[in-house]
């Protein structure tokens, strides 16, 4: 399964949820699949998607927002692995992190990450996260539905193929505009 195929499934499944997306190719590909105000694209904040989603999940703990979804990559998570023990400690019930794991830094020349020999889902489980797994479109649809129904923190560990979708335009919008658009969307629900 290519990343863009996984993102098509996730976009379809998260139209009513706030989604925090890791930087570079993942944000660009999600915006190309569906550019919606419930998406917060982190244009250059490396490794921060899980932390931002953690803060949002804490902030909407008592609001009528079902889940806060982070879409993270293995390389980005390895830049800020504190997300996992922090989630295990704080236990934000609404936090659902989807880890798209291709075992390479997809935005930096496909250099390998540790994930080729490291089970990040297992690391999350050791930190106290509930873990679901998927490796093809069918299991991703089913596992996302399960993860959405489970109390967080939940990590959905998705094995995908390396490589970026071709001819996807850069995401050049002002981050202030992207942030305000997301905030306004969330304010209508929270």
């Amino acid at each position: 399964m290519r990343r863009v195929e996984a993102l098509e499934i996730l976009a379809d499944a998260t139209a009513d949820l706030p989604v925090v997306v890791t930087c570079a190719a993942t944000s660009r590909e999600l915006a190309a699949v569906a550019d919606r105000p419930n998406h917060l694209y982190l244009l250059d904040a490396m490794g921060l998607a899980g932390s931002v989603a953690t803060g949002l999940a804490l902030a909407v703990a008592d609001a009528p927002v079902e889940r806060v979804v982070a879409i993270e990559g293995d390389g980005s998570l390895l830049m800020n692995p504190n997300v996992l023990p922090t989630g295990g400690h704080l236990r934000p019930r609404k936090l659902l992190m989807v880890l798209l794991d291709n075992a390479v830094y997809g935005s930096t020349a496909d250099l390998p990450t540790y994930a080729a020999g490291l089970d990040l889902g297992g690391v999350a489980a050791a930190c106290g996260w509930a873990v679901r797994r998927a490796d093809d479109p069918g299991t991703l649809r089913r596992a996302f539905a399960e993860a959405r129904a489970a109390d967080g923190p939940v990590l959905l560990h998705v094995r995908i193929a390396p490589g970026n979708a071709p001819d996807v335009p850069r995401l050049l919008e002002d981050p202030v505009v992207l942030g305000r658009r997301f905030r306004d969307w969330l304010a209508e629900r929270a």
Partner: protein
Amino acid sequence: MTSPEPPAYAGAVARGLWDAGADLIGYVPSASVAPVIDALVAADGGARGSSARVFPLSREEEAMGVLGALPLAGGFGAVVMQDNGFGNALTALTTFNAAYHLPLLVVANTRGGLGEYNSMIHTFGQHVPGLLDRVGLRTFELDRRSGPEDWHAVVAEAGAHARMTFRPVVVLAHFWATDGRGA
């Protein structure tokens, strides 16, 4: 059992953080701000370093992400830390909090100045005000020359300033020669 009264300056910082309107406060430990943390946790009905609204984080960059996200949901966060942690946090502060115009209050004790015992830490600490200024982060400094009530007022108003400017704002607290611990 009631909690012991915190040192005056630490208590003033803690009251200032609540009066700044912080909904949640994350901290990265430092001996100098430990009495601040204790006062925050006690005021919030917690114990052992955590309460419903106060919690530890492992590193400063994740603190900027976790607490910095709150304005996106209509809230306001604060971070308590030590100033050498800005070396870990600058990328997050500039590419997230500042770039997305998200207010955040950061209160950091300083190291490497008067009263320092560590022969290395000044190599970063002495440049923190300049580094923060260079990347456009507004900074207010507090030291022994003003009393606890001034520290309280500055911390509280720095929170208002962060929201007014839609930016992260830093208060650098020099505890040397106060009733707190400078290093």
